[in-house]
């Protein structure tokens, strides 16, 4: 693969209407590759670690772009770029958690091209898998990372099932915290899936990171008003402050009643193959103040049950530390 860096041969389709794209996706089935911003796609294809017979380029479909206000919140087109998402006034005003998360994705250049749909649908970044090795996720029968000698610093501490890769999305945890739902279309119609259910772990589906199926296209993301204007916290810890994936991230939404946390959603990223709801933490903080006593009382609730690998044990204190920071921030 080292000598490959130009696009392989494939048929290119560039529909202008979503109906045409859905018809193509239905007709081409598994042989089609959906192209959004290309920030996941081009690496796979140019490295020739994955190939496809056809590509459906969605970028000509204008209806997939933009942010719209709805009766109960907002709807964001799947092709909306991460830059537009981060800068959108409505989102910044009401759902600052998502703005913060979008603004920390990769780099300005990648955010200019990358889309919300791509960010939540991207494949895992396990370097073994990306090299094209025949691991479980690639249809093989072993995992190179989950071994005593595996180079697994960035891998999962929760939810491993043959595969120990994490979901790399920065916006995913924010959408789960905001109780977003994903709008999925196919020639058979439309279905909506809660963000929490959109992301799937290897125990349920080892070859896909989302509930998206062949022939389906993620067209938009709806965010209800449930958590609009709540108190938010987002932090992404990465080796570098730009152009990097999270080592651990934390997306938190809290409804405050005076000094008291009335309700909260705590969601960690990069610790599992899907954004991880920290239900024990949510239950523990509900009804308490945002103070040292509450933060201390949380202890290791976030990391309880973690299973560490040879090089990722730091994620255990890191996730606990981020929960405490979320409680004490501001």
């Amino acid at each position, binding site marked *: 693969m*080292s000598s490959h860096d130009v696009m392989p*041969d494939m048929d290119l389709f560039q529909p202008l209407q979503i109906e045409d794209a859905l018809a193509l996706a239905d007709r081409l089935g598994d042989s089609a590759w959906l192209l959004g911003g290309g920030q996941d796609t081009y690496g796979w294809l140019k490295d020739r670690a994955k190939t496809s017979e056809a590509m459906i380029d969605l970028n000509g479909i204008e209806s997939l772009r933009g942010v719209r206000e709805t009766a109960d919140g907002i709807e964001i087109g799947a092709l909306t770029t991460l830059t537009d998402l981060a800068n959108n006034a409505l989102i910044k005003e009401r759902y600052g958690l998502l703005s913060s998360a979008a603004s920390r994705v990769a780099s300005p250049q990648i955010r200019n091209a990358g889309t919300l749909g791509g960010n939540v649908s991207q494949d895992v970044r396990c370097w073994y898998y990306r090299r094209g090795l025949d691991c479980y996720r690639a249809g093989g029968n072993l995992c190179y990372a989950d071994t005593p000698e*595996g*180079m697994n610093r960035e891998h999962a501490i929760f939810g491993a099932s043959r595969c120990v890769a994490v979901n790399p999305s920065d916006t995913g945890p924010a959408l789960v915290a905001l109780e977003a739902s994903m709008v999925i279309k196919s020639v058979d119609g439309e279905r909506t899936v809660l963000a929490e259910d959109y992301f799937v772990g290897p125990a349920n589906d080892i070859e896909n990171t989302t509930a998206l199926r062949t022939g389906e296209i993620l067209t938009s993301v709806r965010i209800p008003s449930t958590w609009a204007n709540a108190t938010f916290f987002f932090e992404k810890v990465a*080796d*570098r402050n730009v*152009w990097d994936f999270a080592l651990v991230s934390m997306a938190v939404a809290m409804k405050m009643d005076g000094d008291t946390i009335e309700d909260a959603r705590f969601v960690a990223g990069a610790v599992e193959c899907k954004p991880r709801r920290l239900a024990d933490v949510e239950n523990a903080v509900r009804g308490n103040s945002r103070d040292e006593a509450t933060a201390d009382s949380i202890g290791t609730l976030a990391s309880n049950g973690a299973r560490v690998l040879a090089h990722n044990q730091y994620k255990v204190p890191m996730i606990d*530390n981020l929960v405490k*920071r979320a409680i004490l921030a501001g």
Partner: protein
Amino acid sequence: MTFMHIGKDFVPPDVEGKVTGDAKYAEDFRREGMVFARLLTSPMPSARITSIDASAALRMDGVIGILTADDLPPTMPPANPILASEYVTYVGQPILAIAATSEHIAENALDQIKVEFERRDFVVDPLDSLVEGGPDAYPEGNAMVLTAPEGDENTALVGVIKPVKWPAEEIEKLRRGEEPDGTFTAGWEYGDLDGEFAKCDVVVEESFVTAGTPHQCMEPRTSMVYWENGKCYFHASTQSQSAVNNGLAAMLGILPDDLVIINENTGGGFGSKGTSYPTMGISGNLSRLLNRPVQLRITREEEFYIGIGRPGMQGWIKTGLTAEGKVAAVDLIIISDGGPTGQNSASSSAGHISVLFQPSAMRLRNIPIFTNTTPRGAQRGPGQNEMAAVLAPIMDKAANQLGMDRVAFRRLNAANSDSGIYADQSPVTSAFMAEAIDKGVEMFAWQAKASQPRRRGNKLVGVGVGQGYHGAGGYGYDGLVRIHPSGKIDIHSGVGNLGTYSYAATSRTVAEVLQCSWDSCEIVHARTDKHLPHSSVQGGSNTIFTHSRSNYVAAMDALNKLKEIAAADFGGTVEEYSIGDERVFRTDDSSKGMSYGEAAQRAIELGGHYSGQEYPEDLNPITQRAVTALAGSGLIGAAKDNLERKGTPPGEIIGFMEIEIDADTGKIEVTDYLAVADCGTIMHPQGFSQQMNGGGVWGIGMAAYERHVYDPQNGLPANVGLYQSKLPSMLDVPANMASAAADIPDPFNPMGGRGIGEPSQGCAVAAMTSAIADALDGHLFNRIPVTADMIVNHVADNSYGPRSLKLNTF
């Protein structure tokens, strides 16, 4: 000294092209009939090639031809072959090249080639190979037993590959931080080591490990080659248009006269493009074989493999201080990760200590071990900068045990102009480190910063100090100047152009000597058929010192000839003539004189040595050819640098850094950084600050970001690209990095300058590892890089084990 040009900013001629995008690199050139080559590389770290079947690929439409090791002279290991023949020894090693009418076809053709391998054992960590029973990177063994003295890091090793093994207990001693007993293949010693240790009040012993790092040149080493009328025209990515000639000509089996190297701009070399390198032999030979122009574009991933890397080190150091704080003795062991080529920087690592701490006695014991990782070679401050990284906190520990201020300790042990360095305690041209330290202490407000509280909220504050050193200059190269009858002055330079602009800064020496306008000068470079003199590489921080000398002697030769010609026409001796306003005239009557252009015309008429028909016999053959080609076209100034010599011109810097560590996340923020250089006269202020800042960024990367990771299960690398290697980004380094200089002229350079590029990385990485240890109550990781996970684990008291001394790992 008051200069007309030196020490003043100017706009080097290639800046505009780089800003506008007009600058051309090797990949930008096309030629009618050009074909595109692609490499088939090894997918495994160690194997025997049993068969290659390219017949299906060669039958494809658009495929033009193939080059394999069978088309090339054999290479003896551990020399890095142009193409692998029987054995491959690293993932990504080129096995063959295939050429086609488009890149697309060439890549598709690669998929049709069948190569069969017999897998061999492999190893990615030197200690895993050195231990009894460990695998060897080569069938013959794991170490080079030298039969000829070792050259610099770019010189091929001469010796025999043999297995060298240590008992497991000795490896374990090293891992525990104790002195191991085993076989070494290189080293040096001076002074009475035992006697000096006996005088010490404080002795510190530590084991350490430093990651190798890929060079990651922004411009991969793409080449485009064509042959015409028996000559090879080679568009290359290189650090010199001169130092590459002989090696590349030999690789192609031609005379240097028949080779034209074309290289106007180079997007980074960092030591990896200093001389001819193997992939040059692929495009050159394939183009001749096919009788077609060939472009071999190197992909980002290929550049990781064939672009070589800095050797990693596993080692042990014992250092002893007297009660007064003098470093009395240093005992050093270095086991180097030489990759499959075995290149090793241990002597430079030890030399770094000998320069900056001036121990009374010192010993180096060294063994480079072959591994099946990327080939290794010189990288910015080879040996010195990685030594600086681990040395700083260890020396801090020793100073702290003595209750001595860390900066005062360094000042006490600093080299001066009478100091000796390295094994032979050879002299330096001059050294003013104490003056640089004094300046830095004041500018950084060291005392105030060092005495501040070490906690700000949840942030741990660390204040560090570190030093960088590199031998920064050479002697004996040639200068070549031509004055046209039009008055235009050509300054010929074979120094490469990596973007440091030192090729241009040193050319201004000519304008200084001739007291002429810079607008009247043109730097002639970029193509060897423009007749370039024997020049050094633009590397090793040596351009400033080396080529201000060589340009000075050429300009002085031209100046003398100007005066001789004027004296012949207007009478008197050369001593009675002066220059000004680009004229040469009688000092006592300026009306009696001529312009430089008129003198050049007279030089043509006079012939002989005035216009290059004759030249000094001690010129290098490369320069002789250049002068011959220019003969009769103007006044020629050509000379070899025979100016007075005195040992090594040292480039030294002291760096000061303040950091904040987020104890929750392990993230490090650099809140203040200052580097003060001892590099003589600053020849080009913008170039100076660019090097100080660029090296500083890389030093921060070396301390806390850049990694080199191989899976011991399958020998695959995990950091093949810029993203995976974690080079620091703009947002990981301070927006403002301050730099200054002692600014005391070096007496052995006519302009007073010495080089400084390389130690600017070493002082930054050292200041940062020093600051990290300071922030963590003196905790020593003894490893670079120190990453967020290591800090979080340390704070959480996890069982993380840097003592394992593992290399090529997280």
